[in-house]
């Protein structure tokens, strides 16, 4: 017997005005599947906001570079001769060929286009080109590489593709302050002075917002993160550290450290305060950074949204220099959040196909412990100029 009467088809259109008051709507499904919406996000989010691109210490000397995808643009981030970090659009000013095709590398003293050999100094200036001396009217700065704004913070190079960047203090530091209450709370971790213990890159077949939303809530923690809830028992209640301003989740009594088996971690970062000891803090810095703070290390995720259904996440585990320098075994420490990442990204990949289901056309729902995600959705809608209808 069919129960799907034609006059009231169950198309999952529950997330509406008549829904129970404990539920609020998510974004509609097309926000996760429509390339046109992703294009708006590239233009109005990733290409206009500060974007955390590269760990500064990865650029070891003049000529070191990395290329990263920021919105629709490929960006070269490199160290110049004076040791400053510069960023340029990865496009030759002559005929538009991509200058650097490698993800990282080192040039001796210049970026040279492999097509016609237009050659740019590490400051972006046009140094040489075939027959350039017979074209004295070419201004070598004007036809140098297109510069992108850079800022270094937490030991990372942040870039902004906007002509006039927003205030770094308001956009980036503001998100940290909204979460932790003040900037000193993150300064205590001396993130820029830590060394890279491990980097793992995840290629996630999911929309970037699913990853953000996942990171913002802990309703899923008891279900998919057994190791994490063992170390942070309050996570089993479903309230994320991000739910309360300034709150850090307390380590369980049994946990000696923030490790996969609760075994001892490393020395506490000296400037971490007594109140911050044995606690875990998580921060989302819109639009693409997650920071996790624990007493002996910092985990920093950078997301690179590449398509509406694909996001590359580069995750760094940062430790005190002597921990990295002496080659201490960081495996159990890394393994805890690596598992969390795998569990989370599996969940996001499991969710992505559902976004194009007719049952999700108007979206799903957020339970009270997830309601703060609604603020992220409102923020996004406003940024891309798509306010809800009605």
């Amino acid at each position, binding site marked *: 017997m069919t129960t799907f009467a034609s006059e009231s088809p169950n198309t999952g259109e529950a997330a509406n005005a008549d829904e129970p008051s404990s539920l609020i709507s998510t974004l509609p499904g097309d926000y996760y599947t429509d390339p046109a919406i992703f294009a708006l996000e590239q233009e109005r989010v990733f290409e206009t906001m500060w974007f955390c691109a590269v760990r500064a210490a990865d650029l070891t000397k003049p000529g070191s570079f990395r290329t990263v995808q920021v919105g629709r643009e490929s960006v070269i981030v490199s160290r110049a001769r004076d040791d400053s970090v510069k960023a340029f659009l990865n496009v030759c000013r002559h005929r538009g060929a991509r200058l650097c095709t490698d993800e990282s590398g080192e040039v001796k*003293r*210049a970026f*040279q286009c492999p097509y016609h*050999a237009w050659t740019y100094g590490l400051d972006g200036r046009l*140094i*040489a*080109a075939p027959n*350039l*001396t*017979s074209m004295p009217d070419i201004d070598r700065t004007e036809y140098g590489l297109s510069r992108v704004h850079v800022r270094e913070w937490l030991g990372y190079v942040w870039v902004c593709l906007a002509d006039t960047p927003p205030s770094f203090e308001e956009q980036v530091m503001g998100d940290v302050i909204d979460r932790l209450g003040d900037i000193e709370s993150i300064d205590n971790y001396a993130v820029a002075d830590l060394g890279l213990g491990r980097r793992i890159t995840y290629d996630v077949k999911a929309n970037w917002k699913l990853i953000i939303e996942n990171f913002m809530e802990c309703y899923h923690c008891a279900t998919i993160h057994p190791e994490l809830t063992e170390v942070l028992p309050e996570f089993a209640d479903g309230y994320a550290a991000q739910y309360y301003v300034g709150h850090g989740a307390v380590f369980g009594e049994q946990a000696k450290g923030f490790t996969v088996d609760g075994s001892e971690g490393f020395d506490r970062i000296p400037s971490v305060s007594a109140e911050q000891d044995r606690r875990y803090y998580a921060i989302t810095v819109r639009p693409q950074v997650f920071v996790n703070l624990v007493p002996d290390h910092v985990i920093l995720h950078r997301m690179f949204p590449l398509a509406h259904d694909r996001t590359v996440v580069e995750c760094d585990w940062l430790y005190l220099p002597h921990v990295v320098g002496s080659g201490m075994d960081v495996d159990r420490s890394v393994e805890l959040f690596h598992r969390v990442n795998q569990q989370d990204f599996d969940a996001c990949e499991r969710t992505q196909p559902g976004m194009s289901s007719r049952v999700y056309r108007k979206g799903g729902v957020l339970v009270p412990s997830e309601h703060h995600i609604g603020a992220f959705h409102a923020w996004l809608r406003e940024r891309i100029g798509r306010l809800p209808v009605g």
Partner: protein
Amino acid sequence: MITVCRIEELPPGESLRITDGVPAPIAVFNADGTIYAVDDTCTHQDASLADGWLEGCFVECPLHTALFDLRTGMPTCAPAKTPVRTHQVSVENGHILLHISVGEPA
């Protein structure tokens, strides 16, 4: 003979491209205190050696890394095969003077 500049206007590691009063552009270099002058245009493809990179008494073409010995004008590696002409320079009364060679390259 041409007066290039005052000696302090060409510090070590720097180069100058001379176009006035010369049949073809000439590059003048200060290689750690020794002044050299050679034809400015790379013999491989039209590029200015004055825009290149000075390494000891060699200059590397900025386009395709041909390396020329500033003492002899000889290329030391591919892709250049033909030498550049060298020109005599002297320093008198604090000025760099250029004596243009009219002969064939070495």
